[in-house]
């Protein structure tokens, strides 16, 4: 396989995480989760992907409340959330940290506890973002996984702790240095498998075309589309 962008690897990890999911919803500012879900849908046509902020052909006809009504009924099984801070209990903070104001909690306070398979996603992997305790709890829930630009953690429901499963563009050592909370390490911890040639050609072809109308800046930066 040839060279690939870090965004492409992350989209592939997300595509693998959502396997078996039936309805993935995507909120604000999430081009990599959108790319991963569109990629997964190519091989799993039963997967429905609903972008809340889709500019044209929006999937919701009852306005933006419909997403939350669907989730409240259990009709969404995958959602993505980020955080200015994320801690080892899985809590996320989208409001304020270290005197800085962030956009706000969006629908997280509701979606995180209501959706059984929330995937936490934050590209930046640092002690600034992955902290022992968030300064403000926007939302708590039971995550399926935490994916960063350097690592993939699973969530251990019984122990209520993250477990490092794999690392990318990094090492096990570096992940330990850059993570501010405590976590377990899988006995099979390994480097995250890189994208396959097939995944890359799907991402750069049909997926890029689907993502570009809603994330033009991202599509330009990663795939040179305009």
């Amino acid at each position, binding site marked *: 396989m040839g060279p690939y962008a870090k965004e492409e690897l992350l989209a592939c990890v997300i595509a693998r995480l959502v396997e078996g999911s039936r309805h993935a919803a995507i909120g*604000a*500012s999430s*081009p990599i989760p959108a790319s991963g879900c569109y990629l997964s849908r190519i091989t799993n046509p039963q997967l429905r992907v609903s972008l809340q*902020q889709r*500019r*044209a052909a*929006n999937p*919701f*006809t*009852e*306005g*933006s*409340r*419909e997403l*939350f009504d669907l989730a*409240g009924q259990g009709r969404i099984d995958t959602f993505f959330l980020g955080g200015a801070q994320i801690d080892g209990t899985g809590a996320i903070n*989208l*409001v304020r940290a270290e*005197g*800085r*104001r*962030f*956009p*706000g*909690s*969006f*629908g*997280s*306070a*509701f*979606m*995180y*506890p*209501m959706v059984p398979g929330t995937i936490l996603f934050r590209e930046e992997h640092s002690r600034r973002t992955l902290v022992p305790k968030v300064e*403000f*709890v*926007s*939302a*708590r*829930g039971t995550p399926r996984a935490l994916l960063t630009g350097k690592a993939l953690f699973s969530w251990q429901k019984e122990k209520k702790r993250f477990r490092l499963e794999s690392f990318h563009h990094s090492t096990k050592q570096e992940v330990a240095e850059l993570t501010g909370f405590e976590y377990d390490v899988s006995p099979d911890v390994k480097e995250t498998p890189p994208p396959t040639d097939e995944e890359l050609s799907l991402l750069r072809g049909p997926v890029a075309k689907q993502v570009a109308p809603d*994330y*033009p*800046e*991202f599509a330009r930066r990663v795939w040179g589309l305009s």
Partner: protein
Amino acid sequence: MRTPADIAAAIADGALLALPPDYSLVSMETVRALIRRRAKNLRLLGVPILGMSADLLIGAGCVAEVETSAVSLGEAGLAPRFTEAAEKGEIVVRDATCPAIHTALQAAEKGVPYIPLPGVLGSDLVKFRPDWKVENDLLIVPALRPDVALFHARWADEAGNVWVGRRRELATVAHAAKQTFVTFEELRKGDMLEDELLAPGVISSTYITGIAQAPRGAWPLGVAGVYGVDDAHLSLYAKAAKTREGFQRYLDEWVLTPRKSFSPA
């Protein structure tokens, strides 16, 4: 009522003003008119989040308070004037979460005083919202009745109805608000409620206080099927608004200078 300036004049200082997110038909031309008329102490309500409209109003000093689930410019990044005003304590921010706002508006729509909502209880948001109660492990949010709902529509007709298509959160907020003002792209002859295909996307004139034509009135935001979001302009704004001086230059050039056309060039 004939122009966005007339609508801006009818929105009182201090009003609780409900605005849609950047993706849902924002009446940007009225937002600019509010700034030109130097509106003061507005209390913005994000339905359920806010973007460039709120950032402009905050930067221009028109806002005392914001209740919202978030303020963001999407791909263009943080909303710089909101961020600075919140960090310096120049505005009061009442943090909410999207379904709490939708549900509170639905309570007002139904004429009930409060309504329960699942989820949310694990969030610190609840600690900062004395108006939110907890009963039987459910969050109870009070009905939210904005003084004014303001948005843009693709069409208005001679009967005073407006068409917003699938942007039904605008119908909910129009039902809940005491007054609703709408700018629109084009006027249609007749009554859209007589057209079976158009009627489901209509908000009936029952709920509409005043309308004014504003072609390209959502610019630099979009109207689905008519014109897209002007992403280049949004990113120009996001850069300019990083500093107070840059924001002031933006206002001078794009808001305060009278323009013959609502379109960018």
